[in-house]
């Protein structure tokens, strides 16, 4: 019987990595390849009143200019497809794409961008999600600044009866926590190479983490069936969720379709940092009802997620956060209100941990404060409340193959912490 699973088999791509034979997208150079630079909005919010690219188009060395008018299909993409490839009119964040130039080199393309005449009527932006929720706040998007879930303006999780739990509790513990905007900062910035291949199809070398997911979005943008796009990838120089969203393939593909020549569009580190999607910032308010023995019997959580200018995966991040924000604990009464707010910032989307890292960051400070409030060792609180096999989560899913207690016991052992006997005797297999 072959038994490779569980063995330290060396990386299949390891020799490629240490010899630098692994081919990343920016390593690809095609004959006659042109370089793309993108004109982005210099303001946080506004309306494009006038856009004239004719001087750029006439410049020597420029092969083509594209704007919203050059999108043959749907000028929108994203998990919730609300973000335009090039904005035709409304600007929701500084850095939003307006036009792209392909030229013989990046310097020429940048010079051409300066020749584009752009007249923007600047509007008052809103950055603070709490202000954005107030009546009369500037509208980031016409539908309003708060996302509408199927449960209304909040993602509602209602499990048990939190008020009853608070009434039965010995102690109430409250806390507010925030997490910051984070950048994925993969060492490989976003890049795309697009060309028309020998079968007259559009071919794109991509850094996408999700070939098929993005292929679906690209077919809509290009108005092409899936088999008219050859999407080449599979090897990525770090993603961490930044390559879960398209940043270059749509622009490069549109340009290649228009000028029928190979193009490369790559972000500088500054463009990468300033304009790509982020891990959005959060505010969490927790209120726990706790028994003196350490049991958390009610947990109320209100979250506000600042998702920036477009939905992207923001509402989905709030969904996923809401499922698990109460932590890996058997809490009989849980109430979660998750709110997703739009502001005039670069759109926030997925990043390693996808809402759960933020929820964990908050719930683990809160749970430590619970322990402090009742004068217990934090280990005690974690062990007493930890999910056991078959427990229900806040959205009523059943916990299968529970393993938190086993992980905690091993971690304490490795940290040289002697746990009390009654905790060591516990198991995820039963209470």
């Amino acid at each position, binding site marked *: 019987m072959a038994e490779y699973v569980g063995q330290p088999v060396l*990386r299949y791509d390891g020799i490629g990595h240490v010899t*630098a034979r692994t081919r990343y997208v920016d390593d690809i150079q095609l004959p006659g390849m042109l370089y793309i630079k993108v004109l982005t909005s210099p303001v946080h919010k506004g309306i494009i009143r006038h856009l004239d690219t004719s001087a750029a188009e006439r410049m020597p060395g420029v092969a083509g200019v594209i704007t919203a008018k050059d999108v043959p299909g749907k000028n929108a993409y994203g998990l919730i497809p609300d973000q335009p490839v090039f904005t035709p009119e409304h600007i929701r964040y500084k850095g939003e794409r307006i036009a792209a130039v392909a030229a013989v080199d990046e310097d020429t393309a940048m010079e051409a961008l300066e020749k584009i005449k752009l007249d923007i009527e600047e509007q008052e932006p809103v950055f603070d999600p709490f202000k954005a929720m107030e009546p009369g706040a500037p509208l980031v998007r016409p539908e309003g600044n708060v996302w509408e879930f199927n449960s209304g303006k909040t993602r509602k999780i209602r499990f048990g009866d939190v008020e009853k739990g608070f009434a039965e509790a010995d102690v109430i513990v409250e806390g507010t926590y925030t997490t910051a905007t984070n950048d994925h900062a993969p060492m490989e910035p976003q890049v795309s190479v697009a060309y028309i291949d020998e079968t007259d199809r559009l071919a794109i070398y991509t850094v996408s983490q999700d070939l098929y997911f993005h292929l679906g979005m690209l077919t809509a943008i290009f108005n092409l069936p899936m088999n008219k796009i050859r999407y080449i990838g599979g090897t990525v120089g770090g993603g961490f969720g930044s390559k879960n969203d398209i940043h270059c393939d749509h622009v490069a593909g549109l340009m290649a379709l228009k000028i029928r020549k190979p193009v490369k569009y790559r972000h*500088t580190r500054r463009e990468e940092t300033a304009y790509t999607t982020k891990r959005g910032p959060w505010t969490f308010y927790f209120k726990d009802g706790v028994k003196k023995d350490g049991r958390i019997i009610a947990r109320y959580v209100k979250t506000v997620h600042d998702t920036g200018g477009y939905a992207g995966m923001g509402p989905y991040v709030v969904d996923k956060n809401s499922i698990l924000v109460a932590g890996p604990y058997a809490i009989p009464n849980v109430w979660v209100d998750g709110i997703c707010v739009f502001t005039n910032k670069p759109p926030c989307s997925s990043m390693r941990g996808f809402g759960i890292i933020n929820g964990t960051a908050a719930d683990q400070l809160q749970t430590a404060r619970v322990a402090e409030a009742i004068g217990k060792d934090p280990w005690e609180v974690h062990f007493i409340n930890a999910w056991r096999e078959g427990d229900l989560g806040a959205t009523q899913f059943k916990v299968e193959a529970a393993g938190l207690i086993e992980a905690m016991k091993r971690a304490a052992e490795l940290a040289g912490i002697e746990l009390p006997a009654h905790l060591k005797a516990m198991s995820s297999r039963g209470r």
Partner: protein
Amino acid sequence: MKYVLSFNLNGLPVDTLVKATDTLLDVLREKLNVVSPKRGCDNGDCGACTVLVNGEPVRACLTIGLTVAGKNVQTVEGLQQDGKLHPLQRAFHEHYAAQCGFCTPGMLIAAKALLDKNPKPTREQIVEGISGNLCRCGTYVEVVEAIQAVAAGKYKE
């Protein structure tokens, strides 16, 4: 205005036409198609473009191309000798010191520069030697282990 730049690349002479503003990274990647030095930041922050110039590790993105005229430039493409992996390459592979692999070429060059000068570094010296090379996968533990293994002579021919 372009200039002829002649230098020695991984033991072989090369000539190429460059602009005065071209960085060594531009020369290597865009003109010569030597792609092991990676373009991670163009700002000297990440170290992914680290190469050896006359044995000294430099950021190719901060080095003006014309300044390497007549010098020896070494990249990961030149690490293998007689078709065999360099001890550091074997050690990195066997210690899983590359995850996505993008920072690996710069890491390898930084490690080589360190061991060339100091074949028996302490752990602290290894950490210092690679601390200018960012790895977002966070493979620092494994990179240090790989370099320690080479320094301990575990990868001699």
